[in-house]
């Protein structure tokens, strides 16, 4: 079964692609990344004859109308709101805030955050990247609020800052690739998550995370510097508390909060139960 994923800058698509790549030999699928800037939709259909394809709402043009008449395929639409389409999607992949826009007759899967296991699974501790506190700046602008927290953390603890958005602190070490990111997380004692998205990966790697925004019930949050300080000190100096918290977060990740679960839900919705089952089994096998 050929599954085509457009190489668009949508994190969920990349996560699905990684998950499918890791199970492709277990369930006879052939996931392919489609570079839609280099190859047209019609050429891609002619060459690959996909069984399942992911399409963004911006790709549903006249060429799509043509291929929907000539080819037999299922497609998963990535969109925030309904739009007129020549062929109904098998499912819709949308953001949490857009779920309410969709009616009941189309299965909707929400692109939730979760641990990107396929990216981080092989991470190991590296003393050159070690720190007490790790901060990532991948989620966009550095707000004043965030700047104040980073200022406190860099002046009080052995802190390292990595990520796409530069911050004017000497502890900022630049952008990192997925392997470096995983190693940085594995080599820190505490991850501070300002966006509520990185804590899942930390939890999977058994590194405690403290979040600025609530990610799940089990994850600790902070609302001011005092609170943050108390939580950091507990995780740095109370080994019992630390171990308990790490185990709780790890369990939370395994109870449906990995990108494998998101991908499995998606394929369950379009009645590809074999793929969904394989994704579930794969993630279960990884559990330590």
């Amino acid at each position: 079964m050929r599954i085509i994923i457009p190489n668009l800058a949508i994190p969920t698509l990349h996560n699905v692609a990684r998950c499918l790549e890791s199970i492709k030999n277990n369930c006879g699928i052939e996931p392919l990344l489609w570079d839609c800037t280099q190859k047209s939709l019609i050429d891609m259909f002619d060459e690959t004859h996909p069984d399942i394809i992911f399409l963004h709402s911006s790709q549903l043009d006249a060429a799509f109308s043509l291929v929907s008449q000539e080819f037999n395929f299922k497609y998963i639409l990535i969109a925030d709101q309904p739009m007129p389409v020549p062929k109904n999607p098998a499912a819709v992949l949308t953001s949490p805030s857009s779920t309410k826009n969709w009616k009941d007759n189309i299965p909707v899967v929400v692109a939730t955050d979760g641990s990107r296991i396929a990216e981080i699974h092989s991470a190991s501790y590296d003393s050159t990247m070690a720190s007490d506190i790790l901060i990532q700046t991948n989620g966009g602008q550095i707000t004043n609020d965030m700047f104040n927290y980073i200022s406190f953390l860099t002046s009080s603890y052995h802190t390292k800052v990595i990520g796409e958005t530069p911050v004017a602190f000497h502890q900022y070490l630049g952008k990192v690739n997925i392997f470096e990111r995983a190693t940085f997380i594995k080599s820190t004692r505490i991850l501070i998550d300002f966006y509520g998205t990185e804590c899942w990966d930390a939890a999977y790697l058994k590194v405690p995370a403290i979040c600025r925004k609530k990610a799940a019930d089990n994850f600790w949050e902070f609302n001011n510097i005092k609170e943050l300080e108390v939580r950091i000190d507990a995780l740095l100096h109370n080994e019992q508390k630390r171990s308990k918290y790490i185990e709780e977060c790890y369990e939370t990740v395994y109870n449906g909060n990995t990108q494998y679960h998101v991908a499995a839900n998606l394929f369950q919705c379009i009645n590809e139960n074999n793929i969904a089952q394989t994704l579930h089994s794969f993630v279960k096998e990884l559990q330590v």
Partner: protein
Amino acid sequence: MIGILKGNVGNKDRDFFAMYNLNKLSKTDTPCCLFCDYIDPNFVLPVDINILQRNHIFNFDGITITDDLMISQDFLYATYNHKRFLYLYHLEWPYINGLHFSHLKKVLFNDSIDLIARSETHATLIEQLFKKPKYIMPEWDYNILREIDNNE
């Protein structure tokens, strides 16, 4: 022999202190030279040491020191140098456009490149982030340059 590697030498604090101390060093028994691209004609100090074009660094077999993080990328290929030192004069990396950790890693974690810090405070930070600086040299102090030449 000590060779200092720079890009353009101009009226900047680190160039001023470098040249001031290299001029003093030239009056001692420690031989030294400067590898650079260009010296600003308005540079305020006289230059009393030998100057060579920057690319001659690749044939130099003495101790090389640079204070420029960007130029330190050349260091990776200057394997003929007896010893290579990166002097983190200004802690400038957060201000490099499009900084990628792999650029820092290549130089700052390189086993054959040693680090020099400018002060104890800098040294503590550099050790936490990268590795322990081998020397602390306040503002290109020529006494430390002599010490490096003797030790290495």
